[in-house]
């Protein structure tokens, strides 16, 4: 299993470490030529979605990445990655990759003082720790997507075919279960 981790900005190294601890091979996607190598799945990390969206376009990565996902390549987006995959962003005209039938609300919990830890049920895994950092949540979910986790009444994880998104950061905790779920359930 070779996973390309989008490494334009943000916490991509944390994903690489976690995936490697589960036996996957990883490489960084920083520019167009990086996606010419063989790749079984993509990870879109946390960071600033405005930065990643802009660089995806300007480095000619947006269309090829969208095409990979549309043709069924498994993808896992955390936080900013969720925003990149959303078909719609609440109160914002921007759409980035836009392949997932959800509406994301950016900075949904406010500024850094609103960042928090939680422990909630994740469908198919059980209770897991969740770190929300200036996090989004899923404002609305379309019928093509399925809710996987809810925190304080808000949708914070979902899947749609081979696309998995979390508003929180499993890569920042010691809990490997969501990455394991991605490799074993989504990438299967």
């Amino acid at each position, binding site marked *: 299993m070779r996973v390309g981790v989008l490494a334009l*900005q943000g916490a991509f190294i944390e994903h690489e470490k976690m995936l490697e601890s589960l036996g996957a091979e990883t490489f960084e996607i920083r*520019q167009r030529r990086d996606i010419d190598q063989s790749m079984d799945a993509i990870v879109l990390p946390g960071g600033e979605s405005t930065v990643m969206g802009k660089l995806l376009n300007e480095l000619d990565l947006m269309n090829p990445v969208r095409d990979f996902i549309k043709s069924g390549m498994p993808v896992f987006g955390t936080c900013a990655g969720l925003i990149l995959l959303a078909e719609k962003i609440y109160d914002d005209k921007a759409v980035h990759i836009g392949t997932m039938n959800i509406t994301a609300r950016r900075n949904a919990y406010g500024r*850094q003082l609103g960042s928090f830890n939680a422990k909630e049920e994740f469908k198919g895994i059980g209770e897991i720790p969740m770190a929300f950092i200036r996090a989004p949540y899923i404002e609305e979910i379309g019928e093509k997507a399925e809710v996987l986790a809810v925190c304080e009444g808000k949708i914070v994880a979902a899947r749609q075919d081979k696309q998995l998104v979390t508003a929180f950061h499993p890569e920042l905790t010691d809990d490997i279960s969501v990455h394991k779920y991605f490799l074993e359930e989504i990438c299967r």
Partner: protein
Amino acid sequence: MANNRYELNKELAQMLKGGVIMDVTTPEQAKIAEEAGACAVMALERIPADIRAAGGVARMSDPKMIKGIQEAVSIPVMAKCRIGHFAEAQILQAIEIDYIDESEVLSPADDKYHIDKTKFDVPFVCGAKDLGEALRRISEGASMIRTKGEPGTGDVVQAVRHMRMMQGEIRRLSSMSEDELYQAAKDLQVDYQLVKYVAENKKLPVVNFAAGGVATPADAALMMQLGAEGVFVGSGIFKSGNPAKRAAAIVKAVTNFNDYKMLAELSEDLGEAMVGINEQEIQLLMAERGK
């Protein structure tokens, strides 16, 4: 589940990695920075070059001005308080700033004590010239470190010196035996556990950015190759001929800091860089403030 503020604050810094944090003085500049790909902005009334030129006491910015910038952008907004000025920090926390920079660029309010940052819920970034300073700031509660550079000069020499010093000391610690580490902790005037962490992990326990004097894509790439996890750009952008273009080029240079061909393209036709002043030409070494 109880919130672990310090962990959450370190984690916000992790989200900023691989990015460029830009100094801005108006909502318009903040928007230009966000559109150019800044991962955060530093709101301040005067950029360091102007603080240096104006002289006098430099203080925290007007909260109203900072709020204007918070309104203008969706990315994190940082602001500076004076070294040791915990009341300024309390005010910045009250307006829900995303990160406080306890900064040597402003006039120090306390020549002995830094702010006890463990008392705050918002995160702090602090400057450091060497590993000892970095670890002392971390033990006071800083959740992010940056080099002190020499702000407002457009001269990268000090940022390079600080980054090399820190990385060299980290390499030295990681080759020491355990009994040597106890002595190192005494020499650095920091807790043994912190020294042990650095020796074992070959890095600081928090994110480490470059700051001070970065003015070109090449400067940014230099700092990244020397081990910075991201870059602060102060006067370098809005003191240059074409801020939007230069800002965007520096953002891309940080992402692809090892692609020399791309760096060559990014360095083309950026208009005039800030004129800058050489280290030897300046009277006031801000990096010497707060140790």
